[in-house]
């Protein structure tokens, strides 16, 4: 999975460079988020602006990140959800669980 990692102030931004997250690459995403949290960052933002499609395994990888971040008292936010991606969160009511921002810019200024 192609992901651009960038540290901005106290936040680590993981920008997903794929248009699709499914069972083929969701395991990589899960591992990457876990490694990022293990690296000591206290605030992770996942930029999903380029992602046009996510399946149940992709949601599972993000939930893994959310739960791991909570255990470590780290922030964990999602940004830039496209309509199809957002609908997956709404169907499973996960939009009430995650900290979601319309854009990376808004997530960083929060």
């Amino acid at each position: 999975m192609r992901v651009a990692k960038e540290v901005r102030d106290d936040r680590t931004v993981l920008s997903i460079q794929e248009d699709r997250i499914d069972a083929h690459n969701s395991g990589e995403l899960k591992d990457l988020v876990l490694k990022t949290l293990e690296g000591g960052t206290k605030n992770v933002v996942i930029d999903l602006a380029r992602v046009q499609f996510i399946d149940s395994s992709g949601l599972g990888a993000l939930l893994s990140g959310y739960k791991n971040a909570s255990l470590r008292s780290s922030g964990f936010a999602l940004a830039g959800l496209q309509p199809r991606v957002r609908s997956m969160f709404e169907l499973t009511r996960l939009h009430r669980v995650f900290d979601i921002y319309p854009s990376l810019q808004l997530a960083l200024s929060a």
Partner: protein
Amino acid sequence: MRWAVIEMCETFVNLDIVVPSQTRYLRLVGAIAEQLAKELDVQEDTRDTLAFHLNLALTEAVANAIQYSSAANSTDSVRICFSVEDAYLSVRVYDHGGGFDLAALPMPDFDELRERGRGIFFIRSVMDSVQYHKTDSGNVLEMRKKLA
């Protein structure tokens, strides 16, 4: 990957696809599902949603089939059959694993933040009916969607 286009009319009637039982083919399966939605006789304002829903249902169904098959045989393949009859699109996904009891699957508990167990829920959400049969030659997940 093997393609077997059994019959193509002005509107396709039957299309069979066999892909290796590997997750790298999920993208292709999803793309085929989206392309099919462009070929089907549906109202223009519902086409994009149908494309997304077919992509999602096929991705989840084939990922399940791959997961079941991989335990049994890593060189297995997954067969997908599309057909249109009486304004219904029927999609059948065959697997050769141990199978499962669709009726016994609970609705996901939305308050419980489990990382797995939402695939069939998504399929049920976007398709009109879902059935799973165990047969002597393997198992088949059959999903139907009304095209009107």
